[in-house]
């Protein structure tokens, strides 16, 4: 059964809307994270669906509530590693012995599916509110925040699984291997840009404009990996605990210069679930409530095949203004920023749009900031979650960590007191972001 996607009118995608009406009315409490793997080994118990079920059960347990209390479920169905839209692609043989089947055969394998989850989680017997937050879990966080704030659900799960099948999903296979190009990617694929190519191009423009260099990214990449390796739930800490060095980064293989291999994230299998509820109900939850002060959206205004620096700066500037207006706070109130890094080279666009740790600068300061102490011990923690760069590709480590930081239980807890933080994803011109707070708004 198709479920609604988050309505556009819930988005805060323009300035002048004032304080967010849901400010102080919704909190996050329980968090559940699945184990990770590099690729699916085709066992039912390690499928993306199974990991999502596991994450949901852990989130409910973490919140210290009964599954019957859950009355809402918001899910992001897609991964960048390819959602199946083919209703004729069968699941692996024997799949039906392990899971009840939803109408879409790839549900739980390459596609998140609310019906499939509910069929296979009989304990979620009271879910009445169901919604999809497409493309990115950030959208689902926003949808759930609005839904709780609007009274459509009292205790809502936000969930998202990532899959990565055996083999390579876009390099030299499928459409990339053809001698023709069709569909919307034909304007870019014939030029052979890898996924990081667009970001590298705008980063190059940034460096040229502000007189910066790719080498200045090294401390950000190393610090992010360090932060990620503190997280026992992250892919790298579980499977590749070796630390990257500045030399590794500076001598790395180019993919699309100025993006090297460590400017790209690693696709993995993983799932996250978070419990959203009202402050009143959160009193009975085991974990400290984390308030959502505001959220904001940007969507591409790009008129060409690739965006420009000007467009990304305009877009991230607007995001900063929308978020702060809705939350009633400003850049100086942020104790950390956990914006997306799923290409490392665009993190600074998000950061500068928020004016995080700016000392009067508007733009072009982030790479200098990266060369200062941006560790969790320092005065300006940058990406304390470690993000995708430190944990593997999910687009949600940053949100997860924002909640944990403000609950005081992040594995990479910042040393200064964490009271307000921000996280958002994915792209600088296509982003959903939230400002989180350890305390209710005054």
């Amino acid at each position, binding site marked *: 059964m198709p479920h609604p996607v988050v309505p556009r009118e819930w988005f805060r995608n323009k300035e002048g809307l004032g304080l967010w009406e849901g400010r102080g009315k919704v909190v996050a409490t329980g968090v559940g994270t699945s184990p990770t793997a590099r690729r699916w080994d085709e066992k039912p118990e390690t499928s993306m669906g199974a990991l999502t079920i596991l994450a949901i059960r852990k989130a409910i347990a973490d919140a210290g509530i009964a599954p019957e209390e859950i009355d809402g479920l918001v899910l992001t169905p897609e991964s960048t590693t390819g959602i199946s839209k083919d209703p004729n692609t069968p699941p692996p043989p024997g799949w039906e012995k392990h899971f009840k089947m939803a109408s879409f055969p790839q549900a739980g394998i390459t596609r998140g599916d609310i019906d499939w989850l509910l069929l296979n989680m009989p304990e979620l017997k009271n879910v009445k509110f169901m919604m999809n937050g497409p493309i990115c879990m950030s959208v689902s966080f926003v949808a759930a925040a609005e839904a709780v704030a609007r009274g459509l659900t009292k205790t809502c799960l936000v969930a998202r699984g990532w899959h990565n099948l055996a*083999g390579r999903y876009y*390099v030299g296979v499928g459409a990339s291997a053809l001698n023709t190009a069709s569909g919307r990617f034909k304007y870019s694929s014939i030029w052979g840009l890898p996924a990081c190519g667009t970001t590298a191009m705008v980063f190059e423009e940034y460096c040229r404009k502000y007189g910066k260099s790719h080498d200045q990214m090294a401390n950000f990449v190393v610090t992010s990996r360090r932060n990620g390796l503190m997280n026992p739930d992250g892919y790298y800490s579980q499977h590749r605990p*070796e630390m990257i060095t500045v030399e*590794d980064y500076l001598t790395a293989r*180019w993919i699309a210069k100025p993006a090297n*291999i460590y400017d790209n994230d690693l696709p993995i299998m993983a799932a996250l679930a978070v419990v959203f509820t009202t402050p009143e109900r959160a009193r009975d939850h085991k974990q400290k409530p984390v308030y959502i002060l505001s959220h904001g959206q940007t969507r591409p205004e790009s008129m060409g095949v690739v965006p420009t620096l000007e467009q990304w700066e305009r877009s991230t500037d607007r995001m900063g203004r929308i978020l702060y207006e809705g939350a009633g706070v400003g850049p100086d109130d942020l104790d950390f920023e956990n914006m997306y890094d799923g290409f490392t080279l665009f993190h600074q666009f998000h950061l500068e749009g928020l004016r995080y740790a700016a000392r009067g600068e508007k733009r072009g300061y982030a790479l200098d900031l990266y060369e200062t102490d941006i560790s969790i011990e320092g005065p300006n923690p940058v990406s304390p979650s470690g993000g995708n760069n430190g944990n593997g590709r999910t687009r949600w480590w940053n949100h997860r960590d924002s909640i944990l930081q403000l609950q005081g239980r992040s594995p990479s807890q910042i040393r200064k007191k964490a009271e307000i933080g921000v996280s958002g994803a994915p792209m600088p011109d296509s982003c959903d972001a939230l400002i989180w707070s350890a305390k209710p708004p005054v």
Partner: protein
Amino acid sequence: MAFLISFDIDGTMEFGDPPGGVTVEMVRRAKELGFIVGSCSDRFPSWQKQVWDSHGIPVDFWVAKHMLPDVKARFQAERYVHIGDRDIDRQLAEQVGFHFWWDYEAVAEPWLAWLAWLDDQR
């Protein structure tokens, strides 16, 4: 007269991610037979060295994937070969004058035939 074999790791070696068909024993055998062996992979060089140490194979080099030119400059050999599972492995190898074998070709240890060629030369 020396022969040099460079092994990619992920998708090529049995301990790679994903695992490939080339076994540690094949590398050990090559080393014991006098080949110059090492790895040329996207994994951190320090990690590569650790892995070979853990298998007790004293490899001659452990470098990033695009460093084949350095390997060639460092070691004098009659023949150079890189073994990998991606087009980029092949391209990087051929650009610097290495012979290239795909991972699935390498499981037959075709380098052993070079020893026969060497015997013929003698």
